[in-house]
């Protein structure tokens, strides 16, 4: 069955430190993977898509098919990065979301 696992429910780092939010997936086909972010009192919004291989707000994510992972990384975290992050797997016309990781960046 298709599944997305985000092993860390909470993650706390200091401003300026590197941050990595982990995401593992299980899917037998060719995956389409995304990261969504929800800032406090805002709606859920798309952050990154794996096919575009882009950097948004300093975040990058690389799809590793061998490890079935799609970890989200940023070399220097900022306080405004504090938010809830969801990894999502797209397949068969719908999406499955992980449980989310709450990132707190401390000053």
């Amino acid at each position, binding site marked *: 069955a298709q599944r997305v696992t985000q092993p860390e429910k909470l993650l706390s780092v200091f401003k300026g430190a590197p941050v990595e939010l982990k995401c593992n997936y299980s899917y037998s086909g060719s995956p*389409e993977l*995304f990261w*969504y972010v929800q800032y406090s009192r805002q*709606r*859920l*919004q*798309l952050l990154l*898509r794996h096919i575009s291989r882009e950097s948004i707000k300093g975040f990058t994510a690389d799809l590793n098919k061998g490890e079935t992972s799609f970890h989200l990384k940023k070399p220097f975290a900022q306080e405004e990065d504090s938010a*809830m992050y*969801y990894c*999502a797997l*797209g397949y068969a*016309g*719908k*999406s*499955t*979301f*992980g*449980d*989310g990781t*709450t990132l707190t960046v401390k000053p």
Partner: protein
Amino acid sequence: SAVISQKPSRDICQRGTSLTIQCQVDSQVTMMFWYRQQPGQSLTLIATANQGSEATYESGFVIDKFPISRPNLTFSTLTVSNMSPEDSSIYLCSAARDGPYEQYFGPGTRLTVT
């Protein structure tokens, strides 16, 4: 992008009643979805709202409990029927234009059933 609005933003309802949530998109989109989200938890897909035909429901969700309409390419409704306290949740509408996976989300409807 697409801007999505939902009405109502929140409601408190009595057990046994029904509530209809409206979702309006500012432009035509190919796909619309309805999710349920417990506060601080993951999103669970309820159904895909299909324009002009019956919605496609996920396992554990049935049309009698969650009837969905999508009369055109910019509007959908979700009704939560015969509510119980277990239906208390945030209900999210989303839409996709460029493929089914890059979704734009509404602000959500916070439902409390007493």
